[in-house]
């Protein structure tokens, strides 16, 4: 072995590198077969950004079908009112496209809310239960219904079918669980300016 190396150093180096490459190539080839996975990861990422309200305001039966449509058929990214401007911005960042304003046709952005059933007025018709895409309403025929607050996505779909209009959408209060530290607001920046060249007050504020 050592004779061969001292006699043909170039050949030995070539052999070592080629065998190293072949070995690693075989390892990767084996791994590619052994650890094969299905699924389009971009769909998962888009689905992750969508608010999972399953409200259908985009015209698709749920968030995942909309995510698939965005990934596969170049569907516009501005059809999700619950996601709002922040959602569109996140999608635009992910897909590297221009952020466009929310499509008015599909509804407007509202603060996140949960459904609340005024239980005294509920007649137990089960229509809201059938409408709920995430099974967040509990109840049976001729029995009072109620909403599981932690499951409700605030999609509004139960409000329309209720024959006695006893469902209210109540906007969510900040709780210990949902509270977040707010970053300094870029709009109120002018407050922090100490010195400026501008002489009149309007320019100073800009």
């Amino acid at each position: 072995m050592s004779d061969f190396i001292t006699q043909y150093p170039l050949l030995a180096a070539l052999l070592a590198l080629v065998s190293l490459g072949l070995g690693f190539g075989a390892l990767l080839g084996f791994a590619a077969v052994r650890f094969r996975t299905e699924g389009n990861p971009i769909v998962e990422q888009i689905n992750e950004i969508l608010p999972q309200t399953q409200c259908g305001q985009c015209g698709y039966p749920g968030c995942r079908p909309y995510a698939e449509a965005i990934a596969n058929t170049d569907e516009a990214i501005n059809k999700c009112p619950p996601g709002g401007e922040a959602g569109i911005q996140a999608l635009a960042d992910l897909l590297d496209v221009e952020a466009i304003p929310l499509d008015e046709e599909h509804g407007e952005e509202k603060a996140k809310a949960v459904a609340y059933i005024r239980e005294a007025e509920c007649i137990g018709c089960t229509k809201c239960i059938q409408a709920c895409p995430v099974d967040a309403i509990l109840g049976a025929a001729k029995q009072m219904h109620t909403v599981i607050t932690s499951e409700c996505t605030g999609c509004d779909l139960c409000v329309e079918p209720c024959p006695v209009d006893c469902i209210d959408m109540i906007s969510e209060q900040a709780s210990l669980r949902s509270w977040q530290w707010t970053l300094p607001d870029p709009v109120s920046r002018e407050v922090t300016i100490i010195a400026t060249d501008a002489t009149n007050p309007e320019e100073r504020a800009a």
Partner: protein
Amino acid sequence: MLADYSILLIGAILVNNFVLVQFLGLCPFMGVSNKLETAMGMSMATTFVLTLASAASYLTYNFLLAPLGLEYLRTISFILVIAVVVQFTEMVVRKSSPLLHKVLGVYLPLITTNCAVLGVALLNINKEHNFLQSLFYGFGAALGFSLVLVLFAAMRERLAVADVPVPFRGAAIGMITAGLMSLAFMGFAGLV
């Protein structure tokens, strides 16, 4: 024994910090530090790969290159080893843990081009570390990288909304901040 390894670790994290003192791995340092979230993901992925790659390149050097007298091939072999380790890890993680893949996924392939990884592998050989020392040195380097990356990302998130004079906005203030951080880390010299 324990003291030796902790000195090695602290030395790699603070005193000879790979980014701010040895200036390796600057591209991810400037590139993925815009958001704290991505910085965290990158840090975790780098820690994982750096530790693994320093072990793998140690084995390649001592059991393949050194016995054959081919030490001069170490740079190209290490590049090969690192690329394979990263790719292999990505495949295994994607299959075995979708959650981990979600956290590390996009950053894993990026690490192949992180020069800190190659730097650690080559420095391990230069400093004649044994296997365990190589492992610790790689891990320490990764921890140091993570530390400064997360610190820097946190600062840049604040800088993005701060009132910076126009000529300094964007990358310029980032560079200045990095320089000041580097100055601060130079202060650790002589700690161990």
